């Protein structure tokens, strides 16, 4: 079992019809993600990364091709079984958190457990444990509007993790957070990864993607590149540019500071 990849995708394609126009969002994707990988999926808007995200999350079914999640052929499943796969195998983290405002943190985390009878015994305990994993044990009874943005995203992550899913799927998880909180969040993702969690994040930010171990780039519904992060030429170029910029900024600051001091 442990040798089964978390995700196996073979010649997957997805077509949409917008009005009379046919949009080929995904055009033959082959992708295998092993267990305990931390993958960033990148691409400009229109590259098909959102569509791929939806298919990976079993919210959408491919037009053609195969998608095996933890060895299970989801492309052959009906909507009822897909609901169950979403419930048990996939943990979603959304860009805008999607917490229910009238429920406490604990209630929000328990939500996925309500939808599967096998979790009904001990649901509270599971939810508490999951909140402990994201260091929110002291915020169980807080409502989303009593929490900071970072705390809300932690609640969302705790909710995603509560059923022990095969994959954690995060769509622009830092899109609504400031840069410091974003860094905290990525530290949390790294920690979860070190604990054995398979994580896939979709992002358009290079420095966020840099936290992953592998970067898959999409363009026009196809995979453009697929490298480990330290071998990804685009990312390495970005790091060098960022470093250069940082050095230039530092020099400029020193110059301005010296000029100010002379005057």
């Amino acid at each position, binding site marked *: 079992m442990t040798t089964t990849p978390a995700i196996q995708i073979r010649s997957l394609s997805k077509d949409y019809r917008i009005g009379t126009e046919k949009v080929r969002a995904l055009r033959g994707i082959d992708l295998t993600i092993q267990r305990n990988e931390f993958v960033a999926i990148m691409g400009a808007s229109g590259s098909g990364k959102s569509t791929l995200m*939806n298919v990976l999350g079993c919210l959408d079914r491919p037009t053609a091709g195969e998608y095996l999640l933890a060895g299970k052929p989801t492309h052959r499943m009906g909507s009822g079984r897909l609901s169950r796969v979403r419930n048990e195998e996939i943990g979603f983290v959304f860009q805008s958190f999607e917490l229910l405002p009238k429920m406490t943190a604990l209630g929000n985390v328990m939500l996925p457990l*309500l939808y599967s009878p096998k979790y*009904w015994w001990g649901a509270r305990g599971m939810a508490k444990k999951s909140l402990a994993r994201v260091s929110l044990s002291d915020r169980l009874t807080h409502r989303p509007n009593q929490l900071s943005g970072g705390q809300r995203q932690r609640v969302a992550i705790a909710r995603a993790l509560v059923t022990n899913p095969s994959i954690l799927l995060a769509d622009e998880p830092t899109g609504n957070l400031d840069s410091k909180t974003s860094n905290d969040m990525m530290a949390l993702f790294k920690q979860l990864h070190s604990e054995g969690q398979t994580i896939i994040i979709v992002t358009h930010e290079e420095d966020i993607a840099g936290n992953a171990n592998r970067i898959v780039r999409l363009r026009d519904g196809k995979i453009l590149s697929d490298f480990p992060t330290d071998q990804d030429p685009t990312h390495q170029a970005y790091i060098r540019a960022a470093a250069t910029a940082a050095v230039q900024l530092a020099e400029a600051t020193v110059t301005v500071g010296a000029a100010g001091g002379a005057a």
Partner: protein
Amino acid sequence: MMFVMLLFQTVLTAMTQIWANKVRALLTTLGIVIGVTAVVATVAAVQGLETSILSEFETFGTKKVYIDGRTPRKLRGRIPRWKVELKMHEVHAVVKNATTLARFTPLIFMGFDVEFEDQKVTGVQVMGIWPAWHDIEARSVLSGRPFNSVDEEQQLSVCLVNDKAIEILGLNKEPAGTAIRLGGRRFNIVGVVETKTVGPMFGGGATQAEVFIPASVALNLQPTRKWVNFLLAELKTPDMAEEAKAEVGSILRRIRQLEPGEEDTFDVAVLQSFIDQFKKVSRIITFGSVGVVAISLLVGGIGIMNIMLVSVSERTREIGLRKALGARPEVILVQFLIEAVTLCMFGGFIGLALGWSIIQVAKAAAPDMLKFAAIPLWAAVLAVGAAAITGIIAGMFPAIKAARLNPIDALRHE
């Protein structure tokens, strides 16, 4: 355990939704509130009225039969009133031939000036009766003796009075043996008749001074008058109401030589048949109010459907999220159905409370008529149950709509 929790949570969610939109929820359920209020108040009032009227009939005597002359509509104004009035020979014919009736007494209403010593009271109600009157009206004497057949046959100048008459004439408390003058003629008081209070329906309430004399004496006091106001009789058994009407009718028609097709020139009123009719009417009103409820529930149901559609579109993202987290379409369906049902039952309970309040106010306003008014359990259960069913029917379409939402589009919804 968790199933109960899911249910509980769904109901709680529904309640929170209602609470968060109090005014909207109230306006939405207005139709249901009005419907339930209407049915509950109507049923309670009708049932209360029925109970109090029936109990009043009961005290009045349900076996009583009143027979009197009545001018048919067609002949009104063409023949003098006295021609149709009941004559003594007709009274005797009925007494002799009616097998469905037991006791009899004519009622002869008169008004006289009554004198006692130097006291004179004008226009006192004097009534000519037979001895059986005591039994039919259930009015015995408090002191002295009641009338007997000798008084009637010998046409003795004796009379009975009630306590009010004692009061206004200034008689002593035990007036038997005292003489008073009625229309200039001397009468000996032989007893005091108890005053029976009848409900306001029968003109009771304030008691009047009453003087009773034997019927034969009463007719002698006015030699030109040969008729009685009523012949009062009693049914042998309460179920003989219709039989008695038919029998008395045929006796009087024969005497009055009415041709077939000619209208009756008399009326036979049996209280029991009024009661039967009243019960029929109250049943019709009850059914009618159920009809009102059906209509207002229909209107209310449309309101509920409308607001549930609004709720579904307002909460599209929530639905999308729940689906993404693994809620099956049926679960979403049930959630919205429960919300609709909760909303309707909320309206139902408000209606129940409102109906109850209306009944309390009405009871305070008309304590005589409505003292027995109360919401019957079946009406409460029916009203709230009908509201719940409305919720299911009205909520079905919005719930199906919610269950069918595509989670991707739902999550993208603004």
